[in-house]
């Protein structure tokens, strides 16, 4: 925990600096030939999706560890991961339709990628609702939900390959023009650093809350 307390401020500071620099890099990047200016939403939309996946994996793996060993810290990390999956997932689900409205002419399409992403996001909403309203013992059921949410991530990623979909394929990232690569990977690193820092802080909040509950019980006794 002490290492995390030293590392977190550095992570968050570096992420903040990267986020401040990001708009300048994005502005300098060339416009995409067919979509023009609206394609620049890509530089936050895709990194936010990667952060969503990272948070979903954190929740799922921590949930699995909690189901196996019932360690409280695993539960705290799982809750933190679920909350961040909802946050970054919301960013994806808002920036995507804004881009789609201009690029495709519609706000939303019930195609495989968009639908599975929405379902995955709702699974983590369900996790949070279980933890909020489920009462004592709900962390075990929520952990099962967390594992299920993580299992959806490969389907979200592969949906554009497995099914016919209007959404661009994953090849786009690897075929970016040179001027677009730097801002994209810069934003990706910024989002992932921020996700990691926030995960540690949010897990610490849960651990502190659990300690507070224990101390309150000790006072009552």
């Amino acid at each position, binding site marked *: 925990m002490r290492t995390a307390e030293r590392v977190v401020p550095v992570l968050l500071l570096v992420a903040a600096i990267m*986020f401040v620099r990001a708009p300048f890099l994005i502005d300098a990047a060339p416009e995409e030939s067919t979509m023009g200016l609206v394609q620049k939403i890509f530089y936050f939309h895709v990194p936010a999706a990667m952060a969503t996946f990272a948070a979903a994996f954190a929740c799922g793996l921590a949930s699995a560890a909690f189901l196996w060993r019932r360690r409280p810290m695993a539960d705290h990390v799982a809750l933190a991961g679920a909350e961040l999956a909802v946050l970054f997932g919301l960013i994806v689900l*808002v920036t995507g339709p804004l881009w789609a409205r201009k690029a495709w002419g519609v706000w939303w399409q019930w195609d495989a990628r968009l639908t599975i992403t929405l379902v995955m996001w709702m699974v983590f909403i369900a996790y949070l609702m279980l933890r909020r309203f489920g009462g004592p013992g709900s962390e075990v059921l929520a952990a099962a939900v967390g594992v299920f949410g993580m299992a959806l991530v490969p389907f979200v990623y592969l949906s554009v390959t497995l099914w016919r979909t209007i959404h661009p394929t994953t090849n786009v990232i690897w075929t970016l023009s040179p001027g677009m690569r730097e801002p994209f990977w810069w934003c990706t690193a910024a989002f992932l650093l921020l996700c990691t820092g926030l995960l540690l802080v949010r897990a610490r*909040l849960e651990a*502190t809350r659990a300690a*507070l509950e224990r*101390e309150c019980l000790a*006072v009552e006794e």
Partner: protein
Amino acid sequence: MKASELPTEVLPATPFVFIAYAFVWVALIGYVFGLWRRLARVEGELKQVVARLEGQRTP
């Protein structure tokens, strides 16, 4: 009427890009601020409870 003569909707891109980035910044800053406040409140409450517990234990 030919297809080329049909009216087409041309939307300006700037508002969409602006709203997208503004939403991202507001969401992230809002979450970080809320998290910071929650953490400060819980840590403050924990310190008070620990102090009360130590006061109960010492004669």
